[in-house]
């Protein structure tokens, strides 16, 4: 765990940066997530299918970026490279998530390093044409109607009046606000404001979408629709960087996360790969079969298994290092011993757990 945190120091040859830095396909989704996570798994699979091209120039590139606020450091030597697909940005309050988002949106200039969007400095108008930013705050001219707000944002994006009108209607329909767009913003609920913010971010068909807490305040149906929308946008080759405290929702969105701590990228990549790197925290797996004793005996012979307990319901709690090798061995055992697995569940592989392990159990 400390290895990962420290490895982001650009002066050191680091594992986290070399390994999962460049997006890898989610082909590593293992069997440990069968039980009660099927919905989540479907979403991840669909995300995996929508990751898009892995080659070509990155949409967003942080090159050893540091940014100070006076004596306080916001981000520290961050290197990050994102192409198409959805990436979750997670971390504690004050970890530097917002600074990272604002640097990507061109609101801040780095004190050291460079932030490039489609190869251009992020604060330039050319780069901003490729960025759709959905900030966390949602205050604007409250007397203005949602439609007028969107049209105004469209004009600022460079559309003519007629284009702004038609384009505005398209995005309002897309976010499900077409029928309520005439109402003034003052009368909007939190969820409606989120949709309107999303619409203004989408108006100019950007390649990079920076979404700060996009699901907060949205009702469950709205969340499902938003998640669907994000997946579809990712499927169109867009790059989405989503900052969220709602880890369960984020898990439904993507398996690819960037974890921030103390202004640094502590880890980035598919969650399973990050989890695999946490050698100090063996994966806990709950497994039950028709012959638990045989299974337990066989598992104890396995090098990757560091602990094994029997649970009150007769199932086994296995702690294993190197989950990939462990699951491979388990599959072999099941076949060779003719076992029938009735339950298989990974207990600490969620974003929440990984964050807890990575950031010192404070997630």
């Amino acid at each position, binding site marked *: 765990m400390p290895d990962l945190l420290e490895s982001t120091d650009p002066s050191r040859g680091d594992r986290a940066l070399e390994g999962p830095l460049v997006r890898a396909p989610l082909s590593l989704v293992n069997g440990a997530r069968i039980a009660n996570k099927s919905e989540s798994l479907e979403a991840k699979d669909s995300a995996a299918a929508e990751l898009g091209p892995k080659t070509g120039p990155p949409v967003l590139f942080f090159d050893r970026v540091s940014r100070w*606020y*006076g004596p306080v450091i916001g981000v520290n030597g961050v290197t990050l490279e994102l192409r198409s697909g959805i990436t979750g940005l997670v971390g504690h309050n004050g970890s530097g998530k917002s600074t990272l988002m*604002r640097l990507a*949106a*061109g*609101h*801040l200039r780095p004190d050291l390093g460079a932030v490039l969007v489609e190869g251009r400095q992020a*604060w330039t*108008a*050319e780069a*901003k*044409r490729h*960025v*759709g*930013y959905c*900030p966390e*705050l949602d*205050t*604007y*001219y409250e*007397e*203005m109607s949602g439609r*007028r707000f969107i049209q*105004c*944002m469209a*004009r*600022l*994006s*460079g*559309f*003519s009046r007629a*284009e702004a009108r038609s*384009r505005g209607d*398209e*995005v309002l*329909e*897309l976010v*499900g606000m077409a029928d309520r767009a005439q109402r003034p913003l003052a009368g909007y609920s939190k969820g409606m404001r989120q949709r309107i913010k999303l619409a*203004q*971010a*989408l108006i*100019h*068909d950007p390649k990079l979408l920076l979404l700060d807490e996009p699901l907060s305040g949205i009702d469950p*149906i709205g969340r499902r*629709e938003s998640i*669907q*929308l994000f997946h*579809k*946008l990712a499927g*169109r080759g867009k790059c989405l960087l989503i900052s969220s405290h709602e880890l369960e929702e984020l898990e439904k969105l993507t398996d690819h996360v960037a974890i921030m701590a103390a202004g640094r990228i502590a880890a980035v990549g598919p969650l399973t790969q990050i989890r695999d790197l946490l050698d100090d925290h063996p994966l806990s797996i709950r497994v039950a079969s028709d012959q638990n004793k045989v299974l337990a005996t066989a598992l104890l012979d396995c090098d990757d298994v560091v602990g094994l307990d029997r649970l009150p319901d007769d199932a086994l709690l296995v702690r294993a290092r190197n989950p990939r090798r462990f699951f491979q061995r388990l599959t072999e055992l099941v076949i060779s011993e003719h076992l029938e697995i009735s339950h298989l569940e990974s207990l600490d592989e969620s974003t929440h757990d990984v964050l807890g392990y990575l950031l010192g159990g404070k997630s």
Partner: protein
Amino acid sequence: MTVQLLHYRAWQGAFRRPSWGVWPIARVALGSLLRRRLFWLLYAASLFLFLMFFFGGYLLDWAVTQVSQAPIKVGNVTLDTERLVRSMRQTLQVLSGNQDTFAYFFNFQGTMVMIVLALTGAVLVGNDFTFRSLPFYLSKPINRWHYILGKCLAVAVVVNLLTTLPALGLYMQHGMDEWEYFTNVAYFEESGMGRGPASWVLLLGVLGFGTILTVFLSVTLVAAASWMRRTMPLVMVWCAVFLFLHMVAVILVDGLRYNVHWRLLGLWNNLCLLGYACLGFDHETIWPAPQPSFLAAGITLGGVMLLCLTYLNQRTRAVEIVR
């Protein structure tokens, strides 16, 4: 319900240049201002002044006609009507449509402009900072100077609605009454109705005065409103800058006989000085005398604007950094 991307087209067309974003910014600010009843109330009040100048000329002509048609007797004394008419014209020369008319008009109307700007600055500019809506603007492909320009444009529209536009109305009115007013630069000298130039020279003077007011007040209001944000603090700052400093300058120069350059503290006085220069006033005829040179007034206003623009450059950021 499933989300459909069918109607959401990938954008293939070309975007306009960032400078096209200036007008939408101004439009949003003006839209929120024009919804306020207070603005229309103040605007109506300012129109009274315009109407006074507009109908004042007709009133004078009517009075002159009445006086010259029949002799006026007060008791047994018959008044010299010719002298009376001359005296009336002399007194109300300010309504003749010459440089004095516009100098007075801009001066009086300026008071109303200052009140309107102080009360509406928070709506035009301050709200963006109060409600932190700047990130929405600055996320779009514009830079901070487009934003500042947009806000200045909104203030400029308000200033011109109150000053230059009615002044042009007055100019047109006088020209419609007497066509020579439009064509003959020496109209006033030849007719003996006043002093100063007429025709296109006067028109340029009016536009020049309006431009000076517009540019300076726009920049200072945007700077002051982005600093103070809310109406009451803004009114206090506005009063301090334009009223208090003006009073200090008057006390120092007219009361304590300090050097005339102390008068430069009065920013409104400097604005008027430059405006009078545009209208073709002779420096020596400007009241209250003595006055600093036009150049000194121009340099002072330029310096203040530079300060404001430097502040705006620092202030206009999507991210507010609290140290």
